[in-house]
């Protein structure tokens, strides 16, 4: 009892104000005027030299959006958002048309450096691929195998600043570029797939995104190609009060494979910032897409003020036979998270996976989960969700598993585990299960546990500090999900988990 009591005391003193990544890069940026109207959408589209059909597409979405209502079913609570009080477009003023990172504004590079994440990538950008595992983290990860290479498409606010490894990817026939560029260079591909997984009419936030999306990544992996490197994008929301509306589209053609990493941190702000991204994945016959996210956006201060509102629509379409889409996410940031990376299992024998770690502390509110929609025969899915609540946060898993009439022999395994730290937080599990085909097999397991005083004392008795003990126990709790992350991310994610819970044990 007493140890938990103490933890609770310490949770009260959490100092999320010291958000490690709360800095602002001082680069003049060009903004569209505040508010949303058809003119603003025309402005965005013109800025990006988009084809006419794209503008029409956006306008149609906008008109639709005006008739829609914000969803209210999630277990999150926030003051109403004034959508006319936001900027819908901003870009660094120095219009970058750069080929290498050397040409990037040093201040932007310094920002990335502060993030700590891309140091390795910077080295790789310079063309250095180290063969021995010289690992700054000092973990056993480095066991001699050559480091995986990562191509970075850095999204700085709304404009992709630099795209690297492009040539090598081009050699393999892989297209990896900002979506604005893809609209100009590969309009047919974009037009063929954009909005086919998340239609413009899908939901309030996705529709808004369709109208105003600024930039994002586009990936096309041609038939039979195994993408030669991990693809990675770092998102940062930098300009105050700039809603950021990313749009990502990844297409894996027949028999191809691609692994995409997305990592996010944002600087500290007083006003809540809206983020409404849309990610669409399309896997054709025998193709596989692995999509990993580490999200570490500003969660707000100790009173829950500030912080990012994250309303994201992520969906993958296993369109072809034997295709596979796997989502892995580590969510530690944002004041509000509303996010359900889903899989539509259309192709016969297709497979969807969802591995998630969602950590909430302070006054964060997380309503996240997945949807596995089984449409095709013999489709299978797997959901492993680990929720960790500390402080006064609320953490909800919301998931849907459904089997269509024709989805004979559909299989799902779901495991939702929640871990509570202290006794002022909440964990909730809301599973929806619909089987319209009698041959479907759905399994659901759920547990809720608390770090026990006995476990803590055992660790302390071995000389670990309380903080180390909690980090160790939590890392054990999330282990099966961490194992799904690419090695480089796994180490980073593990550190991030400890950082996120730092406040919870003083």
């Amino acid at each position, binding site marked *: *009892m*007493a*140890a938990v009591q*103490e933890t609770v005391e310490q949770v009260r003193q959490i100092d999320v104000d010291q958000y490690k990544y709360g800095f602002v890069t001082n680069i003049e940026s060009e903004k569209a005027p505040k508010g949303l109207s058809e003119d603003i959408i025309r402005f965005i589209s013109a800025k990006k030299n988009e084809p006419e059909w794209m503008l029409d597409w956006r306008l149609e979405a906008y008109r639709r959006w005006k008739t829609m209502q914000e969803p209210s079913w999630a277990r999150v609570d926030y003051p109403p958002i004034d959508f006319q009080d936001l900027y819908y477009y901003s870009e660094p003023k120095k219009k970058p048309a750069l080929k290498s990172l050397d040409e990037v504004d040093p201040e932007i590079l310094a920002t990335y450096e502060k993030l700590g994440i891309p140091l390795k990538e910077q080295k790789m950008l310079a063309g250095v691929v180290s063969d021995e595992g010289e690992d700054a983290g*000092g*973990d*056993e990860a480095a066991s001699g195998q050559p480091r995986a290479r990562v191509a970075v498409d850095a999204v700085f606010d709304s404009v992709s600043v630099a795209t690297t490894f492009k040539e090598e990817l081009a050699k393999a026939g892989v297209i990896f570029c900002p979506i604005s560029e893809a609209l100009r260079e590969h309009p047919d591909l974009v037009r063929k797939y954009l909005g086919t997984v998340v239609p413009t009419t899908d939901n309030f936030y996705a529709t808004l995104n369709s109208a105003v999306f600024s930039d994002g990544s586009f990936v096309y992996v041609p038939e039979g190609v195994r993408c030669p490197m991990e693809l990675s994008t770092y998102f940062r929301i930098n300009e105050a009060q700039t809603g950021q509306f990313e749009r990502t589209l990844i297409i894996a053609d027949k028999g191809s494979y691609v692994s995409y990493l997305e990592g996010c941190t944002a600087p500290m702000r007083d006003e809540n910032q809206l983020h409404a991204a849309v990610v669409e994945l399309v896997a054709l016959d025998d193709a596989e897409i692995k999509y990993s996210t580490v999200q570490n956006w500003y969660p707000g201060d100790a009173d829950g003020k500030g912080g990012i509102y994250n309303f994201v629509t992520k969906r993958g379409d296993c369109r072809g036979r034997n295709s596979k889409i796997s989502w892995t996410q580590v969510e530690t940031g944002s004041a509000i998270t509303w996010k359900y990376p889903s899989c539509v299992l259309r192709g016969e024998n297709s497979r969807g996976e969802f591995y998630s770690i969602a950590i909430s502390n302070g006054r964060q509110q997380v309503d996240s989960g997945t949807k596995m929609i089984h449409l095709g025969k013999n489709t299978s899915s797997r959901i492993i969700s680990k929720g960790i609540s500390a402080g006064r946060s609320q953490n909800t898993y919301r998931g849907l598993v459904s089997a269509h009439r024709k989805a004979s022999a559909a299989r799902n395994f779901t495991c939702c585990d929640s871990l509570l730290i202290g006794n002022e937080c909440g964990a909730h599990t809301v599973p929806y299960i619909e089987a319209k085909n009698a041959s479907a097999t759905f399994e659901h397991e759920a547990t809720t546990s608390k770090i*026990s*005083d*006995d*476990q803590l*004392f*055992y*660790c*302390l*008795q*071995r*000389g*670990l*500090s*309380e903080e*180390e003990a909690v980090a*160790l*126990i939590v*890392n*054990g*709790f*999330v*282990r*099966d999900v961490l194992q799904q992350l690419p090695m480089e991310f796994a180490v980073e994610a593990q550190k991030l988990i400890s950082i996120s819970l730092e406040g919870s044990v003083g």
Partner: protein
Amino acid sequence: MTPLLEVKNLHAEIDGKKILNGLDLVVNKGEVHAIMGPNGAGKSTLSYVLAGRDGYEVTEGDVLLNGESMLEMEPSERACKGVFLAFQYPMEIPGVATMTFLRAALNAQRKTRGEPELSSPDAIRKVKDVAGQLGINMDMLKRPVNVGFSGGEKKRAETMQMALLEPKLCLLDETDSGLDIDALKVVSEGVNRLRSPERGFVVITHYQRLLDHIVPDIVHVMSAGKIVRTGGKELAHELEASGYAQYQQEAA
């Protein structure tokens, strides 16, 4: 010479209930003390109070380690000063490999003591050496801490941790519970190997059979929260024959 452990007139309670009632105990370096007594005498409480567990309130008296009072120290601080408690029921920590746990503990202690942390290969080598002596192989070290371990495996793992962390004062709480005779031998041999002129032991047990294997220098009988009788190792045999009933009456 300063005793290793000095417990002076210790009174302690949990949730307002008095458990220890003026307990005195002196353990010198190199000595093995056995504490025996009936259920409810406060034996496990004594081990928790010495290790500094939260929730146990010391209302009177003092506990000195090498002449320094430990009462204000956090459990982890006591551990780093050399207090080790082998648990009667070792806790499970799902998902954390035993090897990871041991390395974390080893390096946390070294860091606190201002010693350099061991590199991964050095730590792994050290753990493997110690584990091998207790018949613990790499497979077991990869398994999560105590998860799915048999009673014998748990106690062997506790003994291994004790050997690895090289404590000054070892507290063994009912180490023999849940052990069959073969496991008892392995664990006892492990403990006996750790006996040294620099180290002291407090072996808490209900039964005499453990003391056939870990032969104590001094045997105490504890009842109603204090030591009621002290003698040599022959006292354990006497207790085995006569039982604890007389001491319960004496204490009352």
